[in-house]
């Protein structure tokens, strides 16, 4: 009886379909979204001949951003009854209803010198009304991808009521060479794998970069000296310095606090690894854990009051939560297998983690009390989750098996749907997803 009730309850929670459209267009993102919302994006109007290429490129990238979320489905232009010729003209809603478009995105671009302007409007086809107001962005022609992502973010936000994640960057480890001679370098890219830029050379092994909350700096672990040390790198200048830590034989696994002024990290002495908190300005550090086991991979809650971390104090790797100043920790992971690399979601409600069980690796999420564990992926080796700025998507490392095994980046929705590789040339690991850009 209880079981039946639970199943019923879960069905209500998880199986909510796309809201049938009774009011204005609104896609409520639930775990049950199965049928993507159809949209039409006729090629943006080029307001001068210099804008022809940009208008086409912008339209294509906006449609790609939206389609790749798995929440939207583009209606192929070949199906259109009317091509939306002139931006701002009266919309022939009937023509768009006829091809089952629920949302219509129109836009226009103009180029003047190296300046590109794009404006766009979103229409709710079934209500026959504009959704929000027209917006215009101006930037450089070479920065057209960012402008397309900004349009996508605005469209996503208007239809779902949530902030987007398209105009964001990811710092990661670029990998090349065979498994036993692997070269690793820090690199940065757009969320969709475009515009890769290197931040370090391959002279020293580097691991696990972590973005600052504003995306201006990166913390990472470097083996420059042969001993793991934490570096702070300025993204704009690629200047870097070693982080001052408490005295220790090794320092690794750093993360910024929400204000970007403090760093939580692991420090090792005499075979033992514990968690510390350091102040970037004063260089002073406080020890937060005092156990003979391995305490590592700390991640602060968005409000800064708690830290989730992993420890093998119970005999195997498990997840624990303690106060931001240390003290007693409570275990939150109790399922089969081992749990590691926890990351607090930007909304504060979920913890993403790596789970290792019966020779397989998974990326999963659970509530902060350990309940409602859900495994989103399964493979030979998945690890190192990072959250999209809006907490809807997780990016992680997937490594393939065997002598020719390589690493690459994947993303998956927190519903477990929409697993897709991040398109990159070459190997990649340890992504850290930065904030939406201003």
């Amino acid at each position, binding site marked *: 009886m209880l079981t039946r009730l639970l199943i019923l309850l879960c069905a209500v929670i998880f199986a909510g379909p796309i809201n049938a459209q009774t009011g204005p267009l609104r896609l409520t993102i639930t775990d049950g979204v199965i049928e993507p919302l159809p949209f039409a994006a006729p090629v943006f109007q080029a307001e001068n001949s210099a804008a022809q290429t940009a208008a086409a490129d912008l339209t294509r990238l906006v449609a790609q951003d939206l389609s790749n979320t798995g929440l939207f489905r583009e209606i192929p232009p070949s199906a259109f009854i009317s091509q939306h010729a002139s931006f701002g003209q009266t919309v022939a809603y009937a023509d768009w209803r006829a091809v089952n478009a629920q949302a219509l995105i129109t836009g226009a671009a103009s180029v003047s010198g190296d300046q590109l302007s794009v404006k766009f409007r979103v229409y709710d086809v079934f209500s026959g009304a504009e959704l929000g107001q027209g917006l215009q962005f101006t930037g450089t022609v070479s920065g057209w991808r960012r402008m397309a992502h900004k349009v996508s973010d605005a469209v996503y936000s208007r239809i779902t009521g949530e902030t987007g994640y398209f105009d964001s960057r990811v710092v990661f480890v670029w990998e090349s060479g065979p498994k036993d001679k692997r*070269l690793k370098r820090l690199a940065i890219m757009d969320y969709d794998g475009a515009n890769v830029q290197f931040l*370090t*050379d391959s002279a020293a*092994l580097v691991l696990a970069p972590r973005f600052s909350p504003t995306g201006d700096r990166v913390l990472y672990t470097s*083996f420059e000296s042969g001993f793991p040390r934490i570096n702070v790198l300025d993204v704009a200048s690629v200047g870097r310095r070693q982080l001052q830590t408490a005295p220790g034989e090794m320092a690794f696994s750093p993360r910024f606090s929400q204000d970007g002024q403090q760093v939580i990290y692991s420090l090792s002495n005499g075979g033992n690894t514990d968690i510390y908190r350091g102040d970037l300005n004063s260089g002073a550090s406080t020890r937060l854990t005092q156990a003979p086991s391995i305490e590592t991979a700390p991640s602060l809650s968005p409000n800064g009051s708690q830290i989730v971390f*992993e420890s093998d104090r119970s005999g195997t790797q498990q997840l624990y939560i303690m106060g931001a100043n240390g003290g007693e920790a409570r275990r939150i992971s109790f399922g089969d297998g081992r749990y*590691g690399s926890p990351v607090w979601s930007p909304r504060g409600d979920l913890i993403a983690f790596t789970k*290792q069980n019966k020779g397989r690796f998974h990326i999963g999420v659970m509530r902060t009390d350990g309940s409602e564990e859900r495994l989103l992926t399964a493979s030979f080796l998945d690890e190192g989750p990072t959250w999209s700025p809006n907490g809807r998507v997780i990016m992680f490392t997937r490594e393939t098996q065997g002598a020719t095994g390589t690493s690459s980046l994947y993303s998956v929705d927190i519903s477990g749907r929409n697993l897709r590789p991040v398109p990159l040339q070459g190997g990649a690991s340890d992504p850290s997803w930065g904030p939406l850009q201003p």
Partner: protein
Amino acid sequence: MHMMTKMAVVGLVLLSAACTRPDRFTDGSNVGGAGGGLDQAGVNDPQSPQFFTQTIGDRVLFSSDSSSLTEQGKVVLAGQAKWLTDNADYLAIIEGHADEQGTREYNIGLGFRRANAVREFLVAQGVPETRMRVTSYGKERPTQICSEESCYAQNRRAVTVISIASLS
């Protein structure tokens, strides 16, 4: 003055190259941490580093998720301790490693535990602690690349790398 201008121009060129090229770095190599290639000449000379590395053995292996020394490992380490005692000019860096079955951070902690177990054994055998340093490469530097236990067993290791150079 002319010199200054030239330097400024060179600086600008470098700067603009940095801005336009996705890769503003020359390629290097970060492969390390396994103890370099040694010739065979000294294998039979008990005072030589080659004797240490190859005849005594520079590494000990561990079972999965363990930092306990095996009986076989203790024999190797007793030999290392004697050699280090006899060759007091040498310093040692002990590198701990893990196989690929594990998360990145945990494996660094685990490799460190393994390296420290070796250090503690060598200290107990009379090697001064000041002559040793420990580090961990986690799962980053496998010597064997297959995804099977035969390879994993070789990768779960602590390697004692000796040198005459200063530790600092």
